[in-house]
């Protein structure tokens, strides 16, 4: 399993709602778990993809985040929704302009819908989680390029 395979696998996973995948082969084991970003890597603009030891691999999917790009993280464990209902349109879109206090998404926890509001005014430059995917506490959801 080389880095290209892992990248390809990761690309595939990003488009699904698979959270975790375990592969066991003769050559070794690979586990990919999505949605967990270490705090010291929060600035790394990417969700880590890790293969457990002996061969630890971290794939960084994007270049370093500029200083004026803010991270909106999940305030709780739950399921991430981009819109108020399946039929409704998303609260925000890529490239959209948001105001401080504007609702960005919903985190469903224990059947309750919790709105996540932007603490920044600016432009949405990344949406880091797919609709319907589980998120953990502190997991990055959006990158907002702050207005000057």
């Amino acid at each position, binding site marked *: 399993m080389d880095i290209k395979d892992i990248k390809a696998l990761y690309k595939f996973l990003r488009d699904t709602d698979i959270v975790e995948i375990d592969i066991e082969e003769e050559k070794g084991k690979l586990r990919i778990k999505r949605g967990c970003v270490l705090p010291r890597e929060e600035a790394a603009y990417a969700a880590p993809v890790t293969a457990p030891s002996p061969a630890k691999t971290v794939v960084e999917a994007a270049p370093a985040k500029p200083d004026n790009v803010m991270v909106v993280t999940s305030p709780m*464990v*739950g*399921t991430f929704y981009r819109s108020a209902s399946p039929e409704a349109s998303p609260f925000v879109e890529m490239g959209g302009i948001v105001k401080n206090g504007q609702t960005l998404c919903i985190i469903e926890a*224990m059947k309750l819908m919790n709105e996540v509001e932007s603490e920044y005014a600016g432009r949405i430059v990344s949406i880091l989680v797919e609709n319907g995917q589980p998120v953990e506490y502190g997991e990055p959801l959006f990158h907002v390029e702050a207005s000057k």
Partner: protein
Amino acid sequence: MTDAHYGVRMFNKILIANRGEIAVRIIRACKEMGIRTLAVYSQADREALHTRFADGAICIGPARSADSYLNITSIISSMEVADAEAVHPGYGFLAENAGFAEACEKCGIKFIGPTSALMRLMGNKVQAKKTAEELGIPVLPWSNKGVADEKEAHEVSKKIGFPLLIKAAAGGGGRGMKLVHTQAALSSAFNMARMEALSAFGDGEIFIERFCELPRHIEIQVMADEHGNVIHLGERECSIQRRHQKILEESPSTAVDAKLRQKMGEAAVKLCKGIGYTNAGTVEFLLDKNKSFYFMEMNTRIQVEHPVTELVTGTDLLKEQIRVAAGHKLELRQKDVRFKGHSIECRINAEDPKTFVPSPGKITELITPGGPGVRLDSAIYCGYTVPPYYDNLLAKLIVHAETREDAIARMTRALEEFHIAGIKTNIPLHLKIMKDHDFIAGNTDIDFLSRFT
């Protein structure tokens, strides 16, 4: 999935709502049973062993326990998100939180422990004591109900005599207790206790019982399935405490012989059958100098010190908890429970061995004891930083040998091998206890450590 041992249903995935050595202990049991494990962790525990050992791990909040390990919403949400069927609460944190158990029941998640109703019943010390008394289990003379005011307290005191203890119904483990020696001191002690109980537990219910001088703290391990079967697994001697915190436990107790063990065990089983208890539990007794025992309280969870019982009975209480929660019948019958040898557990805490001041920080050197008859239930490794936010239990060192004398010799050499640098630990205190004449002679009571240090 079915359990190969029984052909009965078994859980696919269990969430471990705890941290430290007990979370690791639960993960070990699950792995050996072929059950997937989901750890939850605070931001301070990313490098913790339970986070590393589990099949999956979800960050549920910041370091502060109230926001993470006590965060019921986050934990239940984690189970929904990761599709875990059951939750093991360990001890501490949410283990005796009836509200959490109830939330699990409502969400269709199996809480590995008794029902929320049973937790509520035993969580209220007045209710628990009344229940035990009604079932014919000996209790110390007491107020027979909550005591409403000073006047009632004085009436009760005439019946019970001095010294007496004022206790909070919502307390437990010694919290919220006042010892009163004279009539004159009663009123103010009563009012203080009520105020303290109200602020500490949000519940000002107070009761009064006779004070027992220099008792031993003896507890009986029970295990009950959901089909009405209850067994006991003998006693644990837990008299070596500091401010009601146990630091060393052993089984059997030097004060309990086979006959007394049977009597106390039968009392514990009677209580469990009387209330329809399920899963693992511990019935705590005081044993006085005349070998009379009195029901104190029941802990509706697995205990820190469960390994000493496992080693002398050859059972695996964690696996049994999980099996029972999945609806299995108890493997063992009472007549098949055998007690073999002697076991001692030392709680290795990150603290100054003299001042007891906690000592979190980075472990820079570590040599752990091993070899025959030594079990280490630990949550540390060399290079690990012990966070300052949680309790200071680093590891439980447990030995098993044929006799108590051999167990003490084994524990001594194991403690001598145990080397932890970077933080302070109570290993020197344990070594001192192992060499103490009273300890070697088995003369311990709940004041042992205060006389000793």
